């Protein structure tokens, strides 16, 4: 299927249309499975509410999880990395210049050795 839609990568090919076709098939199968679910639940009852560990659903957007609370586990596991990298971002322009000068010096050494 070597058409305008097919991109060759050197190791293989990529055809977005085939991917869309596969996606559509997966979607249809998912919708079919969903359609086989029970329809006899009571609307606007406990059966229709999200289950939040037995707690009531917060009203007026109160259940919104702030961005800072997300990925706590990832950030915790990367604490050692962040402890070193975040303080480098001082916001002080002279520090920015030091990094520039440092990279320049390193590149000069690489260049002169080349």
């Amino acid at each position, binding site marked *: 299927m070597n058409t*305008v*839609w*097919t*991109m060759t*990568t*050197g*190791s*293989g090919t*990529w055809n*977005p*249309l085939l*991917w*869309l076709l596969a996606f559509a098939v997966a979607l249809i199968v998912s919708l079919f499975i969903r359609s086989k679910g029970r329809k006899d639940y009571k609307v606007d009852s406990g059966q229709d509410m999200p289950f939040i560990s037995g707690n009531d659903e917060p009203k*007026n*957007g109160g*259940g*919104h*999880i*702030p*961005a*800072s609370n*997300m*990925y706590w586990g*990832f*950030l915790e596991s*990367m604490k050692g*990395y*962040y402890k070193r*990298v*975040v303080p*480098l*971002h*001082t*916001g002080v*322009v002279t*520090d*920015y*210049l030091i*990094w*520039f000068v*440092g*990279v*320049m010096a390193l*590149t*000069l050494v*690489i*260049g*002169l050795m*080349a």
Partner: protein
Amino acid sequence: MRHLPALLVATPLFAAFFMPLIGRAGQTARSLWVLLASVATSTVGLLLAWKVFTTGTVLYVFGAAAAGQALPMDSGGIPIRIIFEVDALSALMVVIASLSSLAVTLYSLVADSKSSGQDGFYSMLFLLVAGIFGMVSTGDLFNFFVFLEITSLSGAALVAFRIDKGVAVEAGLKYALLSTVGALSILIAIGILFGQYNALNIATLAARLQFTMLDKVALALLIVPLAMKCGAVPMHFWTPDAYSTAPSSITALLVVSSQASLYGLFRILFSLYGDVLQFSWLTFGWFLIILGVLSMFVGVTMAILQKDVKRLMAYHAVSQTGYMLLGVGVGLAVLGNREALDAYGRTAMAGGLFHILNHAMYKGLLFLTAGAIFYRTGTRNLNKLGGLGHTMPWTMVFFMIGALAIAGIPPFNGFASKLLIYESVFRFNPFLSIIAMIVSILTLASFVKVFHSMFMGAPKAEYAEAREVPKSMLIGMGFLAVIVVVTGLMPRPFIDHMITPAVNALVDRSDYIVAILGGK
């Protein structure tokens, strides 16, 4: 058609200098002028790019009897005038700048209409566009410096435009200071090269370079500032400051301005120093690769931490620049190995260059959606936002398209360029490819957080009044979203007709030299 290269810079300059005059006639006249100038500038850019892609490199010699007369009879074989040399790589950058500037202008007509100082704003915007076009079109090193200065000064002014209790002014000053130091470094390098070879034309210098010790010093003085200007780690610190405080329309254009510096970096390494670096291609290839990997990883991990949506996106811009450096770096590293170059080097470079185009489109789109959210809510704080999907559905859809593209999810354009990079870089060094994939996963995680924080959940009482942004802003975002989808669904025509010629322009540097000096 003959004067398109001159018009490419003249049109936005004309628009910029007449802006204060037109602005006196009122808001409507100014808006019409901005719209007209933007459409004209982009049309000129796209026509020029079309000409390059269909007929080959376009030369334009300013002040010469004939536009293509690079070497006057009495010049002793030296191109003495300012010459624009627009090859396929330049044309690719011209296309990117043309499309982005058009979308940005459409968007800003409403988004920035409440701000005072409109004449100055649009004058600076068109100066920035002129500077970008000049940087990617000129064949003259000193001229490149001049256009770099134009982009830096107008960019700094635009970053500081909103003042924002001094925060934006501080970011603008940082940007201006670093840009000035970088530009001085470039100017010294140009002086060193001119002192040795009596020439400023890139092709002439490329033909004469001896790779003396001074040439090596000049190389470092040229590439480090350009790496800083494109936001490569560890010189990326200015990026989140400047990108987050500038008006969103300007941030989208600053991304293109940074990419013009990336173009300069590639032009210096491949076209100017190409052959004399032949024993150091691997070294300098790894130099780009290491900058790329650092940028990818530090950028994305810093992004995950952020709660200011534009600061988060700015770190992602750093991260995505890493992919471009990685792809082209692998190409440079194997430039001396014809077998490896043909097997995967050119593909890696194609991935890197395609990613420049894709990134400009989806990152521009993402910054515009962030601007739309700020326009309606007055905040960029992700902890405060939420539930906006109910009231801003179009903005949400455009954000989803941009977010899926940047995360490399098929069938959007980010996937196509990343796939080229993954597969080709894997054959060079599997470890680098794995890092690139992990960074994509982290990018997806980061944008899931943003999507959830801005759009998901029940509507919040404080944003009950929020509604969809005006049509002009939606058209600007929609324009970029369509390009993201089209380049994702049909990557092949773009690769065949734009990216592959651009890769060839970098690899086969003799064409760049011959276009000026002749000999073929």
